[in-house]
């Protein structure tokens, strides 16, 4: 276990390091310089020179990278000149709201997708399985924003059930105080995620159904419901642990779309606004934070998986 831990942790550190290199490279090759952006179009060459010297932008690239890395490690993600705030403070403000959106969608998706996949596996190649498979194929093929638009047309424009705009306000509390406004954004993200998760869940359950231990359980006369709950469920849910970590980038991509569509003031919305304003510090800072969340999420998922299934950690790399 220790060896497995050391290997996975050092891999994750290496990955994070490469992420910073990639982000630094993109930042460097972006058009326009920070000096121009901060001092404005009418800044004199001398002022720009002074700014560059003061901030180390005149140094060699590797030195600049080390300085950048040093700032990152100390939690300094940069300063947004568009929002006139540090990226860190924007993050503290907006991250919880995105976490609320993504977290609740994840939770509901798992609640739906796990039983759905198991039922499909038990009734595989039967009408119910085909129907649910069709739904997940279509859900998987739907552009997230189109799904969101359709939900708005049906439930907001036609039926007047839910507002077409996400909850506004600066804090999670404000978002939670208007739960009906949360319905459509969460539903959009949930449907897309269920389509993805249920396919994995079905595949995992089908694979487990073919295993000998299920046959043994049947042979010793265990009732079907016990086979499903005690044996099948436990074993086929295990791989979902890793899926939750792996799918984080995809779900966050979806969250950007959902937040832009429903005008939900979270990280995704901010990122989208920053793209329009060419606010590179925000784009970079958030990319790093999201990548770090993904890497750490995957690491935790792999460790959880290794704890649950000894075959994983004993596998030669």
């Amino acid at each position: 276990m220790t060896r497995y831990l050391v290997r996975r942790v050092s891999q994750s550190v290496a990955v994070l390091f490469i992420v910073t290199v990639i982000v630094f490279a993109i930042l460097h090759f972006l058009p326009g310089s920070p000096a121009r952006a901060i001092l404005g179009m009418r800044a004199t060459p001398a002022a720009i020179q002074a700014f560059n010297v003061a901030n180390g932008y005149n140094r060699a690239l590797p030195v600049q990278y080390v300085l950048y890395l040093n700032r990152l490690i100390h939690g300094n993600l940069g300063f947004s000149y568009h929002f006139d705030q540090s990226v860190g403070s924007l993050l503290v403000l907006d991250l919880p709201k995105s976490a609320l959106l993504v977290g609740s969608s994840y939770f509901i998706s798992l609640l739906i997708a796990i039983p759905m996949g198991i039922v499909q596996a038990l009734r595989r190649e039967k009408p119910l399985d085909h129907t649910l498979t069709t739904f997940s194929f279509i859900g998987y093929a739907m552009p997230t924003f189109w799904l969101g638009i359709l939900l708005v047309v049906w439930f907001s424009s036609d039926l007047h059930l839910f507002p077409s705009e996400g909850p506004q306000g600066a804090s999670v509390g404000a978002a939670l105080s208007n739960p009906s406004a949360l319905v459509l954004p969460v539903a959009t993200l949930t449907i897309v995620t269920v389509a993805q998760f249920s396919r994995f869940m079905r595949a995992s359950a089908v694979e487990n159904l073919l295993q000998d231990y299920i046959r043994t359980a049947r042979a010793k006369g265990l009732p079907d419901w016990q086979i499903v709950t005690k044996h099948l469920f436990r074993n086929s849910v295990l791989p979902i642990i890793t899926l939750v970590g792996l799918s984080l980038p995809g779900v966050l991509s979806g969250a950007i779309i959902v937040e832009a569509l429903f005008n939900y003031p979270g990280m995704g919305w901010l990122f989208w606004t920053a793209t329009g304003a060419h606010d590179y510090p925000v784009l970079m800072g958030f990319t790093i934070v999201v990548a770090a969340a993904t890497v750490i999420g995957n690491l935790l998922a792999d460790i959880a998986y290794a704890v649950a299934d000894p075959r994983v950690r004993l596998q030669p790399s």
Partner: protein
Amino acid sequence: MTSTDVLDPSAPLVPGESAVGGRGLRAAVRDFSHNPMGMTGVIALVVMLLFSFVGPLLYPTNQTHPNLLLITRHPSAQFPLGTDAVGYNVLGRLMVAGQSTLEVGLAAAAIATIVGTLWGAIAGYVGGWVDSVMMRIVDALLAIPALLLVLLLTTLVTPSVVMVIFVLGLISWLITARLVRGQVLVLRQLEYVEAAHQMGERAWRIVGRHLVRNVIGTVVVQATFEVANAILLFAALSFLGLGPPPPAANWGGMLNDGLNYVFDGYWWLIYPAGLCIVITVVAFNLIGDAIRNSLEVRLRSR
């Protein structure tokens, strides 16, 4: 290989044995043609291709000059799917938009497949620290949500179809690289690769002639999924206003234009383009699944 490979939907049952060649290919094609879902996908795809590329020849419409006298007309005999906010014929526009959408999907997947196969094959064959570094780069890029990368890259370039193809291609090769590398790790231990090595074949020749050929099954399956993903990403990009500007047309862009009329009941600006995307993406996913199944069936019957 890490535990996460278990979850890969396109991982073959027996790594390294999904070789397609000679007689095997014919059997795979036969299996495929007997798969109703796969054939549904093929038919849907052919219909969308004909609609997009032959359609405009049979039903030519003006898609470059806005006509403000004809805005947001309801569907009628003259305009079967009405007109949009600047007076374009929506049915005709769907066809033209389909061309660029399909082109972007196919071309981006082609770039992704070539880059990913070579990257994975080299990493797997060379092994050692080169492999480690190459795969950590893949991990790092996979850790950044695709949409974030696309948004970052599109702020760098002026959006055009060619640029979108390159940007999508350059972020879509990661899964392919992982899959190919996993298979090559197994393949390179097989006798025939060892034999080729002993006979003094150069490394690049072994990679190109023996390894890449034997992972083609996996690569083709993944490529069809990448087409579907690229089309969805392209649509997302257009929705966020970062697609090629008008008069260039694509399905995602049409949906984005229709977004302004959600509360006006102009259904023809909201449903048709979305349906086109869904049909095309489902078609590619069905084809990919069917190819994978036909390769796996052959393995089981061996």
